[in-house]
């Protein structure tokens, strides 16, 4: 398997749960940089805290910086500004990037600094036990919303669009070919690029919400096919209103 060379052999077995989308996302990222023939020795992968942060750290056989919860974009900013020759990629979760790290996310987008930020969006806090996230849909049951989430969720693509990001896309770990295509575009984009990747968490989200996620991890991944709607125009991001569906595509 040609992607093996990007993985540190000593890190297995993988820490991801059965049915976790992050393993698929990890493969998509590695496939994208392999297809682009990028020199991994000139790349730095930065992550925060959470399950998604473990995609690069320490899996990737590259320079990896596993930082504090919410702060990877700030660290990445320092790396990129001091050495612009390095390709800096932030891979972290929705709680990390959009809750505690929301300020760094919007300001990096505003500065349009050349970072690729890949959000592994599972709509929940996986590692800490399934608490509500800023991306949890209304009504979803979590460890801290036993009656169902009452706050509206963030659409992270709209958020970074408003802040000034210059490449924005959303896909899911079911749509791997599309996901790889978007990641490749993000990695070669001159400016701030953001990819919202819908990546299911059966352990903390699916089992609490089996009425919408199905009764197995595999069903939860397959369900992404049914709930995704591909945007025909980028500006659909601001007009799309189908309930319980996810709009995918390139928005900028």
């Amino acid at each position, binding site marked *: 398997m040609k992607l093996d060379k990007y993985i*540190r052999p*000593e*890190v297995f077995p993988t820490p991801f749960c059965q049915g976790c989308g992050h393993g698929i996302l990890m493969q998509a990222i590695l496939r994208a940089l392999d297809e682009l023939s990028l020199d991994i*020795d*000139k790349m*730095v992968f*930065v992550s925060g805290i959470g399950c998604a942060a473990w995609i690069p*750290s*320490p899996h990737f*056989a*590259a*320079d*990896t*910086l*596993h*930082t*504090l919860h919410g*702060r990877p974009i*700030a*660290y*990445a*900013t*320092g*790396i990129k*500004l*001091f*050495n612009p*020759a*390095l390709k800096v990629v932030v891979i972290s979760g929705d709680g990390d990037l959009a809750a505690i790290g929301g*300020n*760094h996310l919007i*300001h990096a987008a505003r500065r349009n600094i050349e970072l690729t930020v890949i959000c592994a969006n599972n709509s929940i806090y996986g590692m800490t036990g399934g608490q509500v996230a800023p991306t949890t849909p209304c009504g979803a049951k979590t460890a801290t919303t036993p009656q169902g989430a009452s706050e509206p969720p963030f659409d992270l693509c709209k958020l970074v669009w408003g802040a000034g990001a210059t490449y924005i896309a959303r896909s899911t770990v079911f749509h791997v070919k599309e996901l790889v295509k978007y990641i490749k575009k993000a990695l070669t984009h001159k400016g701030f690029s953001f990819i919202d990747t819908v990546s299911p968490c059966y352990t903390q989200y699916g089992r609490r919400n089996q009425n919408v996620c199905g009764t197995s991890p595999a069903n939860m991944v397959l369900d992404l096919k049914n709930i995704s709607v591909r945007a025909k125009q980028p500006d659909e991001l601001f007009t799309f209103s189908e309930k319980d569906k996810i709009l995918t595509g390139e928005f900028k």
Partner: protein
Amino acid sequence: MPQFLQGNEACALGAIKAGCRFYAGYPITPSSEIMEQMARELPKVGGVFVQMEDEIGSMGAVIGATWAGAKAMTATSGPGLTLMLENIGYAIMTETPCVIVDVQRAGPSTGQATKPASGDVMQVRWGASGDYEIIALSPWSATEMYEMTIQAFNLAETYRVPVFLLADEAVGHIRESAVISPDIPVVNRVDHTDLPTFGNSKDNSVTPMPMFGQGRKLSVTGSTHDEWGYRKTQSPEAQATSVARFCNKIKQNTDKIISYESYHIEDAETIVIAYGFTARSALKAVQTARADGHKVGLIRLKTIWPFPEGIFRELPKTVKKIVVPEMNQGQIVREIQRFTALPVEQYNKTNGTVITASEIADKLNEIR
């Protein structure tokens, strides 16, 4: 050749001299002139300046830039430092050399933004979570804002630790004739690509600071890790080894790190121990008392952390009493009490004004 400089400006000049080529910060009085000066000076030497969205981001960017190869610095004041402390803990855990200037103002909280204090002495020592040793230097003049900034960078590089320059508003904002010596040595980063990223497993000594982009495939994490940076969060041994190194690399080198000055202590019956701007007033009070025939001396702490407990070995047998004036409710006085059986008197002022020489003189008369 002396120059007429503000303390904060001298600090920025010292940073440039020390090789600082990255600054990230967020405005906060009374430290902002350091940031403004760095914004002017760094582009002239090919360095990078960025004003971040907050202090948390500033400290994160400093650490990121350091791993990208920079000597990096930030400056702030008490409330900003509070925000930075989680990231400073990360710098301790990942042995990231960097310099944090804290120009202290009267607090708690936003307190008095333009008034001096020494209220962060314990915050820099114990603010981050977990067990560690830290280095903090205390300048008393614009000249020392320059010199100690260079020294802070040198110590950071030598021990791979974040180093605090613990100034106060009076020193940061003072304008005076400062000596900008061209002869202060600078410790430069060395590269040993064959050594582990974090400590030598043979003797647990500090290994040279590596950098990203060299094909070394560095694994860096704030979680407990082994010497190659692999997470070992379930390992009692990895945790104990790391914490021991963080502490021992400072504790075992205190003779090289610690610096203090003594004035008129040979026959002193009363010793004043002071630091920062307060030591200037203390020196004047001691000189006045000497002129009046009183046997008084001064020890000025240039290093606050690690605490220079060795000063008590230097005390002459004549000493009967110690006086500790501080612009806080008594933070260093307790450290002093830990190491001496002599009676220790404290003089504290927390109203946002400096302690004057006459106030210290009055205290000396009162206890005589």
